[in-house]
């Protein structure tokens, strides 16, 4: 039964989390299980994407209930790609966690909760049922609440209050949207919904539901007027947590947006225009926010918002090439953003501060490390041939095709500000002459760490930097994958046929 491979990524993470709970008392065993399990999870995800690539979309009906009555799990190229990216960034983060998170936090179940988060992510990507998607979202946010508050520092608690309020609010809106959708169609299976929504005569109701989904997922993805919780919360937890959040959590929102608006609510010009306008504003707002900040973690938080705009823009343009560009951007962004927060963590480890005013002199002291850290930074900006360049190129060409020069202006502005911000960061953090900072008591500076600890911190950064380089230099392969995903998403008949078999 080849379809069973659809469930393996979920089951692996679930088993891992349970095993980790059972080894609660020994951090050493937890570390081993987490690292080993992440490697297994990566292998399983590679297996899944290879199978999907060769066999086409795979589906499995849970409990043997025929779709649309039971819950369907679907692995199309998009879902399989996202699962693979989760596994890649999960592997890096679980190693980075082992190297950087304090013992006190690990003792209170940091690693089990981290794997519950990955479980939720994999589930959200693979499910084909809209209410089931809601449940996976809840698993994700409950785990993320624990991760963001674990440790209980003042700034963490303050950030958590905002984070959890807005996330619960988004969930309520999402639930409301599901309720209206169920009232309209009497179905929850996404493929079935796609057929039934198209048959509804009252287009007004259909549009209201779509807007509810846009707001619910928009808060989670941090698009323009709904992003304010993100810069208030993402810099508060330890860097390993920020890395998962920045890399993966907002992208789940983007995934859900792309899924819902290419499968269920399709071909609505009004909505496409709204999404385009929001995308433009998201890019500009995120870029301007990043300009004003001095704390490097906050700069990265605003850059997340800026680049969410690029992906939403691809969705709004709604052509095969634009969707493919958005997918390429998601692939590039998950790897780079995870790496970026880890780089931030490494800088913090070296100097003991996040403030750009106090930082400096890292290049003089660690030239090789600095060269490593510049790979994610350059990839982020998209200096050719690094990875960010290719999707931006296609996004701009696609915007030219509809003659929307405001969008092109926003895109170029966002890219330019990203370049400026990164150049400033490079100058301030790496080139500027370093100040003598007062030494913090009991702080585990990078210099004082043992060599194996150093490897645990630098290893994941090196790993993700290599992946970034591959995405940039092997753009041909990634583009093929993205084009395949774009083709599948634009022809939603393929998805419907795979699920319902008709």
């Amino acid at each position: 039964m080849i379809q069973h491979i659809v469930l393996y990524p979920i089951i692996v993470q679930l088993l891992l989390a349970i095993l980790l709970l059972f080894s609660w008392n020994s951090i050493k065993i937890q570390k081993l299980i987490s690292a080993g399990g992440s490697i297994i999870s990566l292998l399983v995800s590679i297996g899944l994407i290879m199978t999907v690539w060769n066999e086409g979309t795979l589906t499995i009906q849970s409990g043997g209930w025929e779709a649309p009555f039971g819950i369907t799990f679907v692995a199309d190229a998009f879902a399989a790609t996202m699962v693979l990216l989760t596994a890649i960034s999960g592997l890096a983060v679980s190693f980075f966690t082992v190297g950087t998170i304090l013992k006190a936090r690990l003792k209170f179940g940091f690693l089990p909760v981290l794997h519950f988060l990955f479980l939720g992510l994999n589930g959200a990507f693979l499910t084909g049922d809209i209410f089931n998607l809601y449940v996976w979202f809840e698993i994700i946010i409950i785990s993320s609440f624990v991760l963001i508050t674990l440790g209980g520092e003042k700034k963490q608690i303050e950030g958590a209050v905002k984070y959890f309020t807005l996330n619960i609010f988004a969930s309520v809106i999402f639930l409301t949207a599901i309720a209206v959708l169920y009232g309209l169609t009497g179905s929850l299976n996404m493929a079935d919904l796609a057929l039934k929504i198209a048959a509804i005569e009252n287009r007004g109701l259909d549009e209201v539901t779509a807007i509810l989904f846009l707001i619910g997922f928009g808060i989670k993805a941090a698009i323009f007027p709904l992003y304010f919780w993100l810069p208030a919360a993402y810099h508060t937890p330890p860097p390993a947590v920020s890395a998962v959040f920045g890399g993966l959590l907002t992208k789940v929102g983007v995934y859900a947006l792309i899924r819902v608006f290419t499968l269920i609510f399709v071909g609505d010009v009004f909505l496409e225009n709204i999404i385009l306008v929001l995308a433009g504003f998201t890019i500009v707002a995120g870029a301007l926010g990043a300009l004003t900040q001095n704390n490097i973690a906050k700069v990265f938080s605003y850059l997340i918002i800026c680049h969410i705009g690029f992906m939403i823009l691809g969705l709004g343009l709604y052509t095969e090439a634009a969707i493919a560009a958005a997918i390429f951007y998601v692939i590039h962004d998950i790897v780079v953003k995870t790496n970026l927060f880890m780089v931030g963590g490494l800088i913090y480890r070296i100097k003991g501060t996040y403030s750009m005013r106090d930082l400096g002199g890292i290049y003089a002291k660690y030239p090789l490390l600095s060269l490593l850290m510049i790979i994610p930074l350059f990839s982020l900006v998209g200096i050719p041939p690094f990875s960010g360049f290719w999707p931006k190129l296609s996004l701009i060409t696609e915007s030219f095709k509809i003659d929307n020069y405001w969008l092109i202006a926003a895109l170029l502005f966002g890219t330019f500000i990203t370049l400026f911000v990164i150049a400033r960061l490079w100058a301030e953090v790496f080139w500027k002459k370093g100040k003598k900072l007062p030494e913090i008591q009991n702080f585990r500076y990078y210099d004082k760490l043992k060599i194996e600890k150093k490897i645990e911190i630098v290893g994941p950064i090196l790993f993700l930097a290599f992946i970034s380089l591959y995405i940039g230099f092997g753009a041909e392969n990634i583009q093929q994958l993205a084009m395949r995903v774009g083709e599948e998403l634009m022809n939603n008949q393929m998805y419907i046929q795979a699920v319902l078999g008709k």
Partner: protein
Amino acid sequence: MEFLLAILIGLLYASGLYMMLRRSLVKLIIGLILLSNGANLLIFLLGRITKGKPPIIPEESYNFLDAYADPVPQALILTAIVISFGLQSFAIVLIKRAYKVVKTDDLDQMNSTDEFS
């Protein structure tokens, strides 16, 4: 019945939003609770209310002859209630902790993470 429920749901959403916009932490949680209850009732209402017709077939018959209540919304609400219960308990513990750490329940004073540094 539907009409009354619709008004009740509207009231729950409105008062939930109003409470969320207040500055107090406790009112924030109350607002979230009202909102999620409103959403649960909305699912119930939109699943079509059928009185006294449980979705159970008698053992000897093989098909439905009469209208029956849709079991799916009830399952959805049950799931949603359990989830929101978990979230709310977490939220209440969190605001207690926040009150202890920040020493205020005024949301306007909890802005140290937004300040420039």
